[in-house]
Structure formats: structure tokens, C-alpha cells
């Protein structure tokens, strides 16, 4: 059976955004800087953050009325892929995901309260999508919200919450008597002991565990009214798209280091890239990166269309780009020889980023199992 055509949509705005992002990050996000930011407690540079906001990146997919550019969410990959390529770690991912979840659940008033600040880079936002044990399935959310006489009371735990220690806004999905709801928690609502930093393999990222026990919230903290299950699923799908794009960039970055080394390092009188044992895997990695980019461009193209189609495309991207990044970083270490095994060699930064990004929001095994159910039965 011949399949339907896979249409790729790519607007001039997206192309311009990509050009600008690649140029900006190539210049600003050097490995020296990445290593410098890694040692900061927040892991990112506030000046750079403001510049990103000024470039409009934080409002790419937000409505114009809240200061955004109102591009389709698929356009976000234009800036996220180069972030992976240059190993940038800022609250961009968390803030963007939270912004879209707000948009999908909150009332107009609530949107007005947070979205303009997000678009300006003045509000660091995040969201708690994983349960305490690291499961990224919405059904496993173990935060529970109970209706009190006045307001809500939360209990339960979450993990893998990005930037939590210094976020201005934390979106917490929780189970209620009437299905899933999302709550907006402010920094003031969180006690010191509610937050525990996770020690990640990827030292450029900041991730935390959240203990919700005892958090009391006003009625207004609940975003919107109805069941939020669909919106939470959408947030996951966007995470697959974005982290899959990041992984594509990570694979490309590791490959690029490897390629330089293969062309310059000599052994036995020849550049090591002239040996087929290194040349052929290099071709394979390049092929997989190109394939990841194809999947990324397609997942971005269809992201705002049919939900089934867009979820399949985003899961495929997350699974495939994750394995591509694993393979590319693995071979990048090996082919750098003893130098690849050092802290000094930038390959380890990509290797560690890949380890983080492959596993958050569901790994390849997870997504392939879901795809099997979606595609085969």
C-alpha cells in the first residue's frame, strides 16, 4: 500500500527565526560560556536570557495580545534545535511548555496575569509533568488536590521539575475529584523544604523534586474550569517535539566535533577519518541526523493539525532523535580516543546532555511501545 504524501510546511518566518537563532547561538553560546554557566547555581546567564526575550523567542507561539508573535508551536523548533546544537540550557524549555499549558487551560484573566510577563522574559515558569518515580505518563501523576472550605490543598510529589528553585510560576497538574486540573503555584507558596535539587548527569541543566504536601492555594490558583487531561497531553506532545528537536541539535553538535577531529587528527600517517572503521559510522551518524531533521520538520509541520497524527509524529521524533543522539555521542567519545575520555573535551557535555534529554518525557522504548499501540492494532 502506498502511503499518503508527507507534506512539509515551512514559512518564511520560521526560516528567518532559524537563521537568527543559529547565528546568535553560534556566536554567544561557546563552550567556554557553557562551562561557565554550568557552575552557576541557576545554570544560566540572565543577560543572555534577556537578549533571548528581546529577540522575541519567549513569545514565539503566544498570542499577539499577550506580546507574542502568534506563530504555530511548530515554529519553536527553529530555536530549540540550535539550543541543543550549542548546548544552551536556560529556562526556555520549561517556560515555553508552561506558557503553552497556561494558554491551553487558563481563563482569559489568568492568561493576562502571566503570559505578557512570560513573553517579556520577566517570568520564569515551569511545570511538574513527571511523578515522583520518574514516570512521564499523565495517568501516574501522584499530586492530589483536595477542595477545602476555601481554596485547595495539595499533596504528593513530582520529580524532574526544571528550574523550580527560582521559577516565578510553577504549574502543577493534580488529580481532583473531577479529573485532572492544573494549578498555578507561585514561589511564595513553596517552602524551602518543598524543593530538592536533583543531581543530573547533565550538569548544565537544573532539575528538582517537588514535595507538594501542605501547599495551600486560593481558588484562583486553579487554571480554567474543565478537565485538563487533554491540555496536559498537549503539553507532553509539545515536550516530545521540543526535546526531540533539542536531541537533533545535540547529535549534530557531537557529530560536528567528531567530524573536525576525524579531519585533523592523524594516526599512522593519515587522518583518522580516512579509515573506514571511522568513516562509515560517521556516514551513518550523519544519515541519522538528517533523518531526525526530517522527522522534526514533519512533526513541526503537523503539530497544530490532527491530534493523532501530531502525537505520532512527535513520538517518532523523540524516539528516533534520542537514539541518534545516543549513537552520535557514544561514537564521538570513542573516536576522540583518549582525549574523548576527558573532562576537557566538549564531547562529554553532549554525551551528558543526550543522557538527560533522551530520557525525560519518555524514552525511545516508551514511545515505541505507544506507537505500536497506535499504529499496529
Amino acid at each position: 500500500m502506498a502511503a499518503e504524501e508527507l507534506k512539509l510546511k515551512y514559512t518564511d518566518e520560521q526560516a528567518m527565526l532559524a537563521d537568527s537563532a543559529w547565528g546568535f547561538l553560534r556566536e554567544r553560546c561557546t563552550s567556554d560560556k557553557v562551562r561557565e554557566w554550568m557552575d552557576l547555581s541557576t545554570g544560566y546567564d540572565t543577560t543572555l536570557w534577556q537578549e533571548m526575550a528581546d529577540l522575541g523567542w519567549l513569545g514565539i507561539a503566544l498570542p499577539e495580545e499577550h506580546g507574542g508573535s502568534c506563530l504555530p508551536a511548530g515554529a519553536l523548533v527553529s530555536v530549540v534545535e540550535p539550543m541543543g546544537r550549542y548546548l544552551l540550557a536556560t529556562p526556555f524549555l520549561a517556560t515555553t511548555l508552561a506558557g503553552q499549558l497556561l494558554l491551553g487551560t487558563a481563563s482569559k484573566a489568568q492568561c493576562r496575569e502571566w503570559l505578557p510577563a512570560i513573553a517579556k522574559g520577566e517570568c520564569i515558569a515551569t511545570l511538574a509533568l513527571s511523578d515522583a518515580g520518574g514516570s512521564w505518563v499523565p495517568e501516574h501523576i501522584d499530586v492530589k488536590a483536595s477542595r477545602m472550605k476555601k481554596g485547595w490543598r495539595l499533596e504528593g510529589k513530582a520529580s524532574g521539575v526544571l528550574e523550580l528553585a527560582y521559577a516565578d510560576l510553577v504549574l502543577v497538574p493534580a488529580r481532583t475529584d473531577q479529573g485532572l486540573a492544573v494549578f498555578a503555584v507561585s514561589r511564595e507558596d513553596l517552602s524551602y523544604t518543598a524543593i530538592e535539587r536533583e543531581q543530573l548527569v547533565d550538569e548544565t541543566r537544573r532539575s528538582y523534586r517537588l514535595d507538594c504536601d501542605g501547599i495551600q492555594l486560593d481558588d484562583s490558583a486553579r487554571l480554567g474550569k474543565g478537565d485538563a487531561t487533554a491540555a496536559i497531553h498537549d503539553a507532553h506532545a509539545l515536550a516530545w517535539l521540543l526535546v526531540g528537536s533539542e536531541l537533533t541539535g545535540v547529535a549534530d553538535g557531537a557529530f560536528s566535533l567528531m567530524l573536525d577531529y576525524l579531519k585533523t587528527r592523524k594516526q599512522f600517517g593519515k587522518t583518522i577519518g580516512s579509515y573506514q572503521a571511522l568513516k562509515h559510522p560517521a556516514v551513518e551518524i550523519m544519515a541519522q541526523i538528517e533523518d531526525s531533521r526530517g522527522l522534526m520538520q514533519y512533526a513541526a509541520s503537523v503539530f497544530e493539525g490532527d491530534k493523532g497524527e501530531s502525537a505520532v509524529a512527535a513520538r517518532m521524533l523523540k524516539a528516533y532523535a534520542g537514539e541518534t543522539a545516543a549513537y552520535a555521542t557514544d561514537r564521538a567519545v570513542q573516536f576522540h580516543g583518549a582525549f574523548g575520555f576527558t573532562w576537557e573535551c566538549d564531547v562529554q557535555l553532549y554525551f551528558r546532555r543526550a543522557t538527560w534529554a533522551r530520557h525525560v518525557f519518555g524514552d525511545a522504548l516508551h514511545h515505541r511501545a505507544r506507537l505500536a499501540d497506535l499504529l499496529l492494532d
Partner: protein
Amino acid sequence: MSQDKQPISTEERDKFAQKVRAWLKRNMPSKPDFRLPLTFMEIDNQAQFDYLCDWQCRVYEAGYLGMSWPAEYGGGGLPQVYQDIVTREMARLQAPFMINAIGLSWAGPTILKLGTEAQKKRYIKKILSAEEIWCQGFSEPENGSDLGNAQTRAVRDGDSYVINGSKIWTSQAEYAAHMILIARTDPEAPNKYAGLSFFLAPMDTPGIEIRRIRKMTGEYGFAQTFFDDARIPADTLVGEEGQGWNVAMAVLAFERGAALGQAGGNIMSVITSRDLVETARKSLRDGRPALEDVRIREQLVQFMIEERCLRLGRQRGRDQRLLTPGREFAPMLLGKLQGSEYMRRMAAFAVSMQGGQAPLYVDDPMALDGGVWQRQHMNSYSATIGGGTSEIQRNIIGERLLGLGKG
């Protein structure tokens, strides 16, 4: 070949696609009572050959082949997009493939690009109508991958060249009217490449003999061709004497690049991951459908993802902005390597998941899907070996596209 200078509107595309579909439904031949080959490299007998020639001719006469080739030589003179639509619709409806694959994909484009006016007039139309089938004479017994080392000799004698030597892996040699032939005109040339020339050799020339080669499947489809003082007209030379290497490289670019589409028409039947899934549904493993085995499901999904990647690679080529800067030719150069390796792995997997039925071959009544995967598994190597082995492909891509040193 016309470029997409006048892109057409979506409405026009849809309308045209509808028209093509309707035509195909009316005109596609019914399934014959003999087995049809899956690729042009698997023509085993005359009945298959006649059936496929008739079909190509009918497609051409309806105006659905060579649509983007110049009208003055028999083409349609239309933008490429029309041909692409036809090709897609043919694949969608699983129309039989275009038999004159070497002519359509390699000889034709080469003649159009590098041939003389007389050659274009002489050959192009009959390529499209399947009146004249073409074969390829590149590989030699001792120099399979090392085309530049070809030893078949061509010696100028008046208005002729006299050919001596031998070529192998020529598909459809016994049916072909012409061969694109690489031969050595100057053994003393400063380097081996400079001594080669490129010909359009008539296969009915006295002194040309053909020996069919039996494939590992047990069937035929290739041949070895022997030249014994075979005298071919000098005006069958393409380009100048000694330019054969450059012409051949242009031909291989057609072959290695876009194996599908391009000149028009599908040149092989397309097996997809959907077929694989259907096989898994029918295949029993320990009494349960293979499709229920989680490990098999995992592999099926992986194949479906890879297949989508291959298709997306072709799509990306249509919009320069979607290609990776510095690697714009990646999807094109990777197409043959990835496509053929994908097919080999998919066929191997399709056999291996059949459990106790896996050892049954095509003539067994209990063989799953008539044993098509068992045969396809063996046939799949023709694409991972032919037209430059996968190993050679990786060298070429590593060196030309990635700039890695020569081994």
C-alpha cells in the same frame, strides 16, 4: 528536463491527480496468471517482459511518461511536478513498474544532457515507448566496484569502434536494443580514467554474445555480455573519446541519487512497512500472531519510522531551506544506500518473524504471502551490491559530502 519554474496551484494538482487516478483505474492491466517480478532486475521470461512493455507503452501513449522531457524528442515538455504526481499515483494504486528502467533513469537523462542532437532524436522517444529497451555495461568480472579500471577495449577503425571484452550484471541484456557501455579507448592514457569512452552500443551487433546468469534465488534476470570484435558505429560515442569517465559519473549520479521518480514512472514495485505489518498479522509464532509479540512490534515500529525517514528525505529535497547547510546533497546521496539497506533488513526481518513457516519457499502452498519475503530477502542484495556496493556508497558519501580523507 524542465524545472519547476511554473509551480501549479493546489487545485490544479488535485484535479490532475484525480484525472490520473481515473485513467489508471480504467487502464491498469489485470493481474496476469504468471508471477510478476518486483524490479526490472528480475525479468525472468518473455511473458513477463511482454506484459510490462505493453504497460509502459500504454502509459507513454496516454502522455504519462517523460512528461518533463523536451517535447521535440517525444517528451511532454511539462513541469516535473506533473510527472511526480503520476509516479505517486502509480505507486499508490500499485501499478506495474516501468520496465525500461535503465533507459528512463540512466540512458535517457545522459543522452538528453550530453548527447548530440542526432542521438536525442534517435533514442529518446523509443526509450519512453519501451520500443527499445536499454541495458547497462559498466561492471566487469574483475572490476566490480572499480569502474575506472574497466578493461573492455574499443579500437577506432574507420566509422566504427571494435569492441573486445566482457561486461557482467547486465539486467535485461537478452531483451535490450542498446547498452550504455564503458570501454577503454586509450590504454596508454596518463591516468586510467582518461582512457575511457562511453558508447550507446546496439545489442544486435554481430560479435556480441549473452550468457544469462542465474541468481541466488534460482531465477534469471542478469547476464554476462561478451564482445568479440563487435563493430559498433562511431556515432554511438557520447561526448568525446576519453571523456567516458565523466559521462559515467553523470550517469551514476542519476543512479545513486534519485532511484525513484525523476524521469518518470515507478521503476520497481514498492514493498512497504504496511506489507510487513500484514505479514506479521498473518504469521503464527508458537500459535499466536507474530503481531502480538512485543519484540516484533518494537521492530515493526522501528521500520515504520525508518520508512518515514526515507520518504521525508525525498520531501526535504523539494525545499532547499529544509536541507542542512553544507549537506544539501545528503538526502539525495543517501537515498540509494539507505533505501537498499532498509529493504534488505526489512526482508530479512520479515522472513525471521515467520517462525516455523520461515523455511518455506515460493512454490510451497503454505508459504506465507507465497514466499515473497523469502525471495525478496535474496533479491534485496541486488540493490545493496549493484550500482556500487553499500560499502562503496559509504566511502563516496564520507569523502565527497563529509570531506573525510580517502582510505
